[in-house]
C-alpha cells in the first residue's frame, strides 16, 4: 500500500459573504468577493492530516481544480499539514461550467497516477450543494465509498466508518482503496498558524491540465438563468 491520500479541496465564496446575483442573471457576483476553502474540504484535510499524525498513512496530497487562485486554497491545505499539492488548471468558460462529473474524472485519473490508497473529499461544496463528486469518483474507480462520514478509523486494510444518515448513524466496514466524504461532525479543523503558512510556501505545487490526464472537461449542462429566491411575503396572523 502506498500510504498516500488524495484530498480534494475546492475554492468557493466564503461562507460569511452575502451572495448577490449578477444583474444579467447568469450567475452570482464573484469579482472582489472573499473566497476560501469549502468548509467540508477543510474537514477532509483535517482528517487526512490526523491520519498522518497517527502514522496510519504516509503522505497527504491536496488537489484543486480551477484557475490560478485555486493555488491559494492548496496553500491553505499545505499550511494545515498536507505534504504537496496538485493544481489542475481549468479557467475561463471551462471553469464556469466545471461540475462534479468532470472533477470526478480528474480525481479518478489522479488516483491512478498517484497510486492513492484513499480519497478524502468534503461531502458537498457550499456553492453548488451537489453532493455528487465523491460518489461519482468511487463509481469511476469501482472503489467502495463511505459518504457522510462522522467517524473514520483504519483497521489493517479495511476502514470502519460511521455515516450520518436520516435514520441515525450507520456503521459500515469497507475495503481500501476507497473514497470517503466528510460530514460536519467528523472533526474540528485546525487553524493555519503563521509558522505553518511560512513552511507551506516551501512545499511543492505541480500544475497539470485536464488534457494531460486524458479528461475532457466539456460540460453537458447549460445554465439558463440564476435568480434570487422570491421575496418573502408578509404572513397573516
Amino acid at each position: 500500500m502506498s500510504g498516500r491520500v488524495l484530498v480534494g479541496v475546492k475554492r468557493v465564496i466564503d461562507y460569511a459573504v452575502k451572495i448577490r446575483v449578477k444583474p444579467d442573471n447568469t450567475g452570482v457576483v464573484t469579482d472582489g468577493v472573499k473566497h476560501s476553502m469549502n468548509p467540508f474540504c477543510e474537514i477532509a484535510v483535517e482528517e487526512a492530516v490526523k491520519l498522518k499524525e497517527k502514522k496510519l498513512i504516509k503522505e497527504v496530497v491536496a488537489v484543486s481544480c480551477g484557475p490560478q487562485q485555486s493555488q491559494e486554497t492548496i496553500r491553505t491545505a499545505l499550511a494545515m499539514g498536507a505534504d504537496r499539492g496538485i493544481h489542475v488548471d481549468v479557467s475561463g468558460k471551462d471553469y464556469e461550467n466545471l461540475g462534479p462529473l468532470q472533477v470526478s474524472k480528474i480525481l479518478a485519473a489522479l488516483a491512478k497516477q498517484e497510486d492513492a490508497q484513499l480519497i478524502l473529499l468534503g461531502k458537498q461544496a457550499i456553492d453548488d450543494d451537489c453532493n455528487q463528486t465523491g460518489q461519482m469518483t468511487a463509481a469511476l474507480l469501482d472503489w467502495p465509498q463511505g459518504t457522510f462520514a462522522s467517524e473514520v478509523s483504519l483497521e489493517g486494510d479495511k476502514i470502519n466508518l460511521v455515516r450520518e444518515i436520516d435514520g441515525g448513524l450507520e456503521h459500515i466496514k469497507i475495503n481500501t482503496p476507497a473514497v470517503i466524504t466528510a460530514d460536519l461532525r467528523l472533526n474540528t479543523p485546525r487553524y493555519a498558524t503563521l509558522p505553518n503558512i511560512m513552511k507551506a510556501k516551501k512545499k511543492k505545487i505541480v500544475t497539470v491540465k485536464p488534457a494531460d490526464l486524458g479528461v475532457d472537461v466539456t460540460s453537458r449542462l447549460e445554465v439558463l438563468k440564476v435568480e434570487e429566491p422570491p421575496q418573502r411575503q408578509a404572513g397573516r396572523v
Partner: protein
Amino acid sequence: MQLLQLFKNLSLWKELCKNLDKVLASCFVSFPSLSAHIIALFLCRCRPPDVVVFPRCVEEVSALAKVCHKHRLPIIPFGTGTGLEGGVGAMKGGVCFSLRNMEQVLDLHPEDFDVTVEPGVTRKTLNAYLRDTGLWFPIDPGADASLCGMAATSASGTNAVRYGTMRENVINLEVVLADGSVVHTAGKGRRPRKTSAGYNLTNLFVGSEGTLGIITKTTLRLYGIPEAMVSAVCSFPSVQAAVDSTVQTLQAGVPIARIEFLDDVMIDACNRFSSLSYPVTPTLFLEFHGSEQSLEEQVKTAEDITQSNGGSDFQWARDTETRNRLWKARHDAWYAALALRPGCKAYSTDVCVPLSRLPQIIVETKEDLIENRLTGPIAGHVGDGNFHCLMVVDPNDPEEMHRVHLFTERLARRALAMDGTCTGEHGVGLGKRALLCEEMGPVGIQVMQSLKDALDPNNLMNPGKILQREEP
C-alpha cells in the same frame, strides 16, 4: 427612502415620542429594532431612544450627526448593545445611531499585522474572516461584541495578561464628532506600529463610551494564531496560595496567556451546572500559547510554582477537545451562577487592584458577601488583578437589590482604597459616575469635563454617561 423620511419627520418624531416616554423595569426597549439586541445583563433602569437610525456609511453618520447637532438632539451610538454598564440607555431620549449596517472588513495587511473594520463587525466575525491568514484578534470579552464598541468601552478579555486590552491594540480610529465633522485619530489611513506624532487622540476616544464621538472605523493590531495551546487546571488550599502562584508565574517570565481564578462558591456552582467534580476550593484555570518546545517549558515552570504553593490536582490538556472540556467550567460560569437561584437576574461587579492587594480584597469581599447574605460567586482575571462577583439577585425583592447596590459601592471603594480602579473592563456608563469622581479626584474630573466641553459643548454625545453634569 427610509433615511429621508427620518430627516423630514425628526422634529415630528420628537413631539410624538415625548408621549411615549416610559421608564422600563428591564433593559429590553420597546422599539422592535433594538429589542432583539439589547441583552438584559444588568439591572439598572434603562430608557429607550426616540428614534433609531441605521446609517450605512460614514457620510450618512456625519449627515445625521449634523441634523442632530442643529436640532440639539442627543446622539446615542449603538454597536451590538452588549455593554454591561447601561451605555446605550438614552437617558434624555434622542437619536440612537445603530451602526450594524456598516459591517465591512476593510484593508487587511497580513504582513503588517493590522486590519481596519467598521462598527458592524464583531470579534468572532473578524476572526472567522482572518482564519486563513494565520492571524487573529485575541481580545475576547464575554459577548460577541462590535469591535468599534469594544474600542469605545476599552474592553478587555481573558487573555489581557498576554495580549493587552483595547488600549494597547487600537492603532487608529475614524470618529464622527458631535457637529458631524470626521476625524482620523492617527491621520487618515495611517497604521504605523508606533508614533509620537502629537496628542494621543486614539486613546482619548478609546474608552470614551460614546461621549466624545461616534466611532465608525477602527484599525486593530493583529497577532499570530498560536502554534499550540495547553490548558491546565489547579486547585489551591486558599485564595492567597492561588494569587501567590499567579504572581510568581508572572515573575518567572512565563508568557502565560490566561490565568482565571474561580472561588469555592463559583467552582461549586460550576460542578453542579456542568456535572463536574472539581475540588470545592479556590481554583486557577491556566492557558499557555507557544511552540511545542516553549509550551513544555512553560507548563513545567508553572506546575513547579503551583506545587510549591500547595496546589494540587494539576490537570493539563493539549488537544482541542480535552482543552474545551477543561475550560467548560469557566465558560459556563455566568450560567452556573444564575442556576444557583433560578428566576433571578445577575449583575457583574468589576474592580481591578494591583496584584499584591488581590488576596486581601478577595478575602474581605467574601466576608462582606457572607455577612450580608448575598450570592456572589467570584471569577477573575487574576493576571491583571481584576475580578468579578457575579451577583445573583431577585429583581422583585427591593430590599435585596438595595443590599446588592450598597455591596457594590463598598467593593468599589475597597478597590479604590487599595490603589485600584472601580472598573477594570466594563466601563463607567451610568452606574459608576460618582465612583469615577472619587477615583479621579476633582482636578482629574475637571480635566475630563474640559475635554468633553471642548469636543461636545452642547452635551449631545451619549449624555449622562461617564461624567455627571449639574442639571440647570
